[in-house]
């Protein structure tokens, strides 16, 4: 049974749902009032109890991240909201910005208060024009209403929120690259340490949160941290609450759906997504954005160890495992942004692989050698494979190049680019070999159906 919820998306279907009036009609800004009446530590503890796992891809607990911020420092603190949403197949943050922007502003007020910041920057991907417009509208409305400003919501705590336009690079979604871009520098990841909580935006302590993460924060103060967490089927794994799930690709009803955490991939693809297109079957699903290794319907959980978070599903299809940060990591893939891409058996997985690796070659910032040259080499091999010019020896290089990128780079882009390689070669080696043997003629030749 799918536990569909309407919390993050509560204004989605309201007429003029993006306005302050609509947001307040469903209880908007009450949470921020509650939060600002508490101490900073109480707010952080409440968010910790809510077990909101970061929705930008890494799944780090939001409350814990906030607690890393210094309690007092000579420098200003900043809250930075990551709305770069560049991960292929991911389009959930956009729906919030367009249809529930006030939840972001309210989340920013609470977030700023919790980390001792007075300003939040929302870094929005350049192409999302309506999103930027709606966010600015919400900010203006909130300023006018006195919710933002020198006395946010009437409390003696100044908060303001600003929208910053990105310049169209996937790498600027990586948090330190985003900070560079925000400061007007070349969008290249920084070395860590120092971490953003020590040296972030403009050299000051900063927290970077994904936009959905921050939009979920007001809900915590509506129902209480623990109750929020309990909505999830994975509460015991500290993976709480509700979240947005996306599904796209070769399904009948692609879109963004809100449910409690714990939805399975099967439910997402076959029920919410409406199942494969007529006359076709699901060949594989990339679960959470293109960086996450692909899962196939016939894959079975292998977790004999009782301590594994996957043990309850040992021997069952992976499609039936609840989608959580830790369950998916244990599966050898990632939950990522929780936006699945479905590949039909009428489509060509080799072309899908090629397409993804073209993206990573194009988007590598080029700073570090393994990623810069490795992604380029992989793309070349796949270019040749698709053109019918590759050899078996070329295929044998793919996993090695990928394995030599993993762990050896400055930022997680390297893993993001290499993990799908390891996934595809493991799951589609016969298809890759057939391409060599047939000189590029073995596949269906189609990616879009």
């Amino acid at each position, binding site marked *: 049974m799918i536990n569909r919820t309407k919390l993050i998306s509560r204004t989605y279907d309201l007429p003029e749902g993006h306005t302050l009036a609509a947001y307040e009609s469903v209880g908007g800004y009450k949470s921020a009032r509650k939060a600002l009446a508490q101490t900073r530590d109480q707010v952080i503890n409440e968010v910790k109890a809510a077990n909101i796992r970061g929705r930008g891809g890494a799944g780090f607990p939001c409350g814990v991240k906030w607690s890393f911020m210094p309690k007092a420092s000579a420098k200003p603190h900043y809250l930075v909201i990551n709305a770069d949403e560049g991960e292929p197949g991911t389009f959930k943050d956009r729906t919030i910005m367009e249809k529930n922007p006030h939840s972001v502003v309210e989340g920013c007020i609470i977030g700023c208060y919790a980390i001792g910041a007075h300003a939040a920057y929302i870094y929005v991907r350049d192409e999302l024009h309506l999103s930027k417009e709606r966010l600015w509208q919400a900010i203006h409305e909130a300023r006018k209403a006195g919710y933002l400003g020198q006395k946010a919501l009437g409390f003696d705590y100044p908060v303001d929120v600003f929208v910053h336009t990105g310049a169209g690079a996937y790498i600027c979604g990586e948090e330190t690259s985003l900070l560079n871009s925000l400061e007007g520098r070349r969008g290249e990841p920084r070395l860590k340490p120092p971490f953003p909580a020590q040296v972030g935006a403009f050299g000051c302590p900063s927290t970077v949160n994904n936009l959905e993460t921050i939009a979920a924060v007001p809900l915590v103060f509506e129902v209480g941290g623990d109750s929020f967490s309990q909505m999830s089927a994975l509460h015991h794994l500290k993976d709480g609450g509700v979240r947005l799930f996306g599904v796209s690709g070769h399904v009948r009803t692609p879109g963004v759906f809100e449910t409690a955490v714990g939805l399975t991939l099967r439910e997402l693809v076959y029920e919410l997504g409406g199942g494969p297109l007529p006359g076709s079957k699901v060949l594989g699903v990339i679960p959470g954005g293109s960086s996450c290794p692909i899962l196939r319907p016939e894959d079975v959980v292998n977790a004999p160890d009782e301590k594994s978070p996957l043990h309850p599903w040992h021997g069952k299809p992976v499609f039936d495992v609840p989608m959580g940060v830790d369950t998916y990591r244990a599966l050898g893939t990632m939950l990522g942004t929780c936006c699945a891409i479905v590949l039909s058996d009428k489509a060509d997985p080799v072309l899908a692989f090629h397409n993804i690796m073209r993206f990573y070659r194009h988007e590598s910032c080029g700073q570090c050698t393994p990623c810069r*040259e490795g992604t380029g080499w992989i793309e070349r091999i796949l270019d040749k494979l698709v053109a019918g010019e590759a050899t078996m020896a070329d295929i044998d290089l793919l996993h090695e190049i990928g*394995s030599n990128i993993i762990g050896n780079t400055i930022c997680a882009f390297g893993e993001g680019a290499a993990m799908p390689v390891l996934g595809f070669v493991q799951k589609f080696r016969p298809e890759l070999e057939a391409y060599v043997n047939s000189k590029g003629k073995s596949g269906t030749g189609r990616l879009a159906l």
Partner: protein
Amino acid sequence: MPSIKIDGREVPYEPGDTIIKAAHRAGIDIPHYCWHPGLSVAANCRMCLVEVVPPPGKGNVMRLDVLRWDAASKKYVSDKKPKLQPACQWSCDDGMQVFSESSPHVSEARKAVQELLLLNHPVDCPICDQAGECRLQDYWLEHGRYRKRMKDEIIHKPKAVSFGPTIVYDAERCIVCTRCVRFVEEVAKDPVLEKRERGNLGEIFVAPGRTLDNNYTLMTEHVCPVGALTAKDFRFKARVWFLRTARTVCQGCATGCNAYLDYDPRSMKVYRHRPRENAQVNQYWMCDKGMLSYREAHERRVLRARVGGNEVGVKEALEEVKALLAGVKGDKVAFVLSAQHSNEDNHALVSLAKGSLGGADFFLTGRAPGQADGVLMVEDRNPNTAGAIQVATTTPPRQMSDLLEAIKNGRYTHVIALGAEVPVDAKTLAGLERLKTVVIAAHEGPLTRVAKVVLPACSWAEAEGTYVNAKNLAQRSERAITAQGDSQPGWQWVVAVAQALGHKIGFSKLSELRKSLSGAPTAASASV
């Protein structure tokens, strides 16, 4: 002192040290491209990756999933590897263990990085000036030695791009380590270089509207670990493996940058200057003027003795000197020391004056001052002002203007001078022409033009010497090439003059001279 272990060897470190810094100090080489001890850390080449085991109780090594292909079973098998860390970025922690040469994972990573760096590299070695001192070549021998597995055409990028008056850039050879970018920003304080494009299309470019034309352009070539930046001055002139080097002191200004002077021993021709690391003096750098001043070993040289403007043999010249100075009273001679000559040369002249001729009137000449640049170059464009003054001991030399004034007043009949450069123009020197002037100089200059007798001295490239810089540091400069033409070290000419006049000067060998120099700073107190 806290310490870490590198491949089992105890290595002490100073608080704040990265692994590579501690290793560097201990003489352990961790291969690297982008790290440079004088620049900020970029950690982008990933050549320095090492396995790090934190001290007990301070965390575990993350293990990562990788994939291997088992040819026998024709199956992929999952494997784990430890997360490696860049030694240039990772801080030392007491009791930390580092595996560099001894870790198979590190060897694998280095080999992979090396292969990836050469993936789109043109391997122009036969026509590349860097060949022979190129890290790509060195590390390929150490960590590579494989056949190229990418057989496709490399990515072509601009070659031979002029960055300015001195530097040429080859984007295909560039490994985008950003050393050059960091150098111009952090050391030269002129951020004219940046990176553009991304991924494997990245390249370095000069800020629009600018050229690379600050005082430190040649240093970009020097910090470039490969042949991407080459110096117009050195391009295609020599193969470095034919060159030999001497540890010299730059003659460009009173900073006294430590340098390597590279020369071809077959032709005794000098080809270039390179900075030599000295934390107290020039750190890792030299300015363009200093870098190019190697040319002075061959340019504007006085190579034959002259009498009245006519070239003569050494013997005739000394006879003329003898005739000129016969019976002269010491107090009628102006002794001109040179801020461009070594302590040894100046000391010889002081000894001749005080001991042999009984004179005590010293003056000091040298190049006219220039502008300080706030980085290395100081106003005083002479390498040994401090030394020349110290060597004169109780009779401090006076300025050139005092000499001209005294000459006008008929104070002197004779002048014996070291060096040719004076901080005044030739017209002002007209009064000197009337006197009996002997000049011992390596280069042509205003003084050689007015001298009755010119004796050809060795340049710094051909003679050992001690120079005292503006910070009062005495530094020894080694001889590179053999003496050119009839030139001899300046001090040796002074000895010859003394002997010609039948005086005893107390030394005839460099070692004896140095002994007699004790008291004045010598190389014994120098830190070179």
